[in-house]
Each structure stands twice: as structure tokens, then as C-alpha cells.
């Protein structure tokens, strides 16, 4: 019998090791897996690659990830702290202590989607003509220039959703899905925290993400993102 629901945080986070690549869902305050991110911060790992829309949101969730130098590489669309003074993670980048790949948000999303969909690379119009694509492969189709973008995958994805069932099917509330639904398809192991476990099972019309993409589900109350 399939049962993807795990009983505690330790079981949820099992197997995440130093040097892992980890996708983290969330846009602003929606869909941020606060409990899982804080558990990750408490694991005392090093050499992590974090793949998330905005570094600030994860830093607000658990400052130890950057403060304790757990992160070596970041792939993101926004690497800027909320204050005029640079955040710790911005300073680390300026000092060369971590490397950064900064992407347009749509390219970020589509590269993750490609990673889950078996598409190794695609051409995109976004960022053509900007400094982001200097020196990269570009090609014209129908008179317009496009840049080649490669798929993104990761060892783990951490998501938050509203509801799950034992099959791992997910229901997202509001704008919770954002990058999480694609990240789940692009990671080898997808771990989801949810407000509710449906004992009767989600109905087909409620399911936003089929359980095939989810390996572990943990019930965890919503926490404010800023600790």
C-alpha cells in the first residue's frame, strides 16, 4: 500500500546531505515550506546549492543557512535583501564566498519545468540583448533571436501545500503552487509540508499535482515566514 505520509521531521528530511542541491518553493509569503527550511537550517550541512525564487524569503525563514555559510551556490531570480544596507548573503556574494546564477523569473520557472519534463534545453526570447546572455548560444527562428537555456534539476525539492493524501496528491491554496509544482517534477526526492492530510483522499478535481511527483508528506502548521 502506498503511504507517503511521514510521521516526523527527521523522516521527512532523511538523506539530505552536504553538497546537496535543493529547490525551495515559495513566492513572497505563499508556498514557503517554513518548517522544512528551518529543519534544513538545523542540519548543520555545508556546500548546499539552493534553487529558489528569492534568497531574501529563505533568509527571513532561517538566517542560519547563509549566516553559518551552509550555502555555496544559489540559483535565483532575486538576490537582494529588504534593507538599503546589504544583507549577510549579499555581502557573502560580494566577497566571493558563494557563487550566484541570477535568472529572469520565467526562465527560472521554465528551466525547472524542462528538468521535470525530460527536455534538456530550449530556446527562449527572454534576456536576449542583455548582459545575461553575453557569450551564450543564440539562434534566430523566424527572424527573432533566442538564447539556449538548459534544464534545471535538483536532488531535493521542499514544498508547502494546503492538503495532501497518502498517495502524495497535492492541493495548493491561493498562490501556493508558484514554483513548487514544477520543482516537484524536477527533483529526485520531493518533500512537502501541508496543513492537512486528507484521510479520504483528494478528489481528482482537487488535485493540482499528482502524487507521482511527491515522495514524502509531512503535516506541519503554517508558520509565519519571518522567525
Amino acid at each position, binding site marked *: 500500500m502506498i503511504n507517503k505520509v511521514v510521521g516526523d521531521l527527521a523522516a521527512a528530511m532523511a538523506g539530505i546531505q552536504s553538497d546537496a542541491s535543493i529547490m525551495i518553493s515559495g513566492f513572497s509569503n505563499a508556498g514557503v515550506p517554513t518548517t522544512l527550511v528551518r529543519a534544513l537550517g538545523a542540519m548543520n550541512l555545508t556546500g548546499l546549492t539552493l534553487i529558489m525564487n528569492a534568497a531574501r524569503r529563505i533568509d527571513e525563514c532561517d538566517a542560519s543557512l547563509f549566516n553559518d555559510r551552509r550555502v555555496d551556490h544559489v540559483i535565483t531570480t532575486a538576490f*537582494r535583501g529588504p534593507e538599503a544596507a*546589504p544583507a549577510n548573503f549579499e555581502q557573502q556574494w560580494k566577497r566571493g564566498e558563494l557563487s550566484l546564477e541570477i535568472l529572469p523569473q520565467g526562465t527560472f520557472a521554465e528551466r525547472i519545468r524542462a528538468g521535470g519534463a525530460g527536455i534538456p534545453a530550449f530556446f527562449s526570447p527572454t534576456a536576449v*540583448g542583455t548582459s545575461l546572455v553575453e557569450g551564450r548560444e543564440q539562434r534566430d527562428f523566424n527572424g527573432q533571436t533566442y538564447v539556449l537555456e538548459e534544464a534545471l534539476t535538483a536532488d531535493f525539492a521542499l514544498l508547502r501545500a494546503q492538503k495532501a493524501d497518502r498517495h502524495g496528491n497535492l492541493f*495548493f*491554496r491561493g498562490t501556493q503552487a*508558484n514554483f513548487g509544482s*514544477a520543482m516537484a517534477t524536477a527533483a529526485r526526492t520531493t518533500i512537502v509540508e501541508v496543513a492537512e492530510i486528507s484521510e479520504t483522499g483528494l478528489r481528482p478535481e482537487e488535485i493540482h499535482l499528482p502524487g507521482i511527483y511527491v515522495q514524502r508528506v509531512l503535516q506541519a502548521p503554517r508558520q509565519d515566514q519571518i522567525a
Partner: protein
Amino acid sequence: MSTPPLSTPPLGTPLTRNQMAWRAAQDLADGAYVNLGLGMPVLAANYAPAEREIFYHSENGILGVGPVALPGQGDPELVDAGSQLVTLRDGASVFDSVASFAMIRGGHLDITILGAFQVAANGDLANWDALSAEKGPLIGGAMDLSMGAKAVHIIMRHTTREGEARLVTACSYPLTVRGRVNRVYTDLAVLDIEQGQLVVREIIPGLRHDELAAVTDAPLTFAADCRELIAPDLDGGI
């Protein structure tokens, strides 16, 4: 909302932020699908003519953003791209970021209104990298939106606080997109970009053509039917 009476400010008074947003909003057609960037652009939603039905897109996954939620009534899991707790309008749909940017990149949005540091006469846009020595980079959705939307409208002050032109022959800040800006709303004028030229469609009363040219770093063409840029008083007479 209902349109307030037109104001009669002193000649040569630049538009306020709200007035620039109001002016931009008047060009949103009935039935348009529109993405509004952070800052002044998002204010435009307050000023679109009430009889027009407009679907506001938020790139984190909403088509049909409604008003900001009343205090205490918002859902923290339902936010717009500016992190506001929002409501959904009649006919709204919600989807993930992949679907949202497929909609953007695929050319399905009618207009995006964005802020800018600089716009060049050839339609180039610079609005993502302020070349700060201290701060990290932030791209967000601006590159996708400005490349994908059918029309790119910009709201920005005509000059920087230091008085430097923002409408230029060539952007000095890093580009967001090349050659995609169609129209610019400033506190002094409304300009279209046509065949690599800045064409002034409207200018505030009391500002001479040469005065506008003096604060613009690219040649200006004044439309034969160039009109006065007049906005209602939206700031309580300030």
C-alpha cells in the same frame, strides 16, 4: 472608481505619481489583459475607467487580481507579485509560475506597464540593475514581461532626482530588453516610440517644447496633434 474633476494646477506643474498612473490607466482598453509592475504601475489599477473590464495578471499566478484584501481578511497564501494579500475578481483564475510565464512569454498579455531607470529612443529598457556596489541583483519578471507582452508601457519620472534625463539615446544602465517599449508616461509628457524616434503625444500645460527637449537626452518629434497632458487632482490638492 469615478473620475475626479480635472485639476487646474499652476502651469508647468509636473504630474504626481498618482496622476502618471491615472494617465497610463486611461489607455487600458475594455477587455485587456494587463500586468502592472511594482511601484507606480500598480497604482494604475486604481484609475482605470470603471466601465472597462480589465483583467490584471500577477506573474506569481493570478489572472484577474481583485482589490487588496481588507485588513485582517487576507489569505497569506494568496498574494500578488508585490506581496500584497489580494482578492480575486469575478472570472479570475489561479495557476503556477510555469503557466504564468508561458502566458507572458507566449505573447498573450495585451499590455505590461513597468517602471524604468532609463528608456532609449530605440525602445530599449533598463529597469533591473541599478549598478549598486553593495546590493545583490534582482531580476524578477521584468525581462519576461517586457519581452512577452504585446505592448510595453513605461511610467517613470522624466528625469532623475539629480535632474539627469531618463529618456536617452542609449541606455547606460544594463538592459532589461531591447527595442520593446511602445509608450512612456512621465510627469511631463506622454511619448510613443515609433521607428526609433521619441514622438511626443502630450505635454503638460505651460511647458515649452524646447524645455521638454532640454531634459531629454534623445531627439524629440512632436506629433502634429500633440495635446495637453492634463490629469485630475488625485492627491487632495497637493
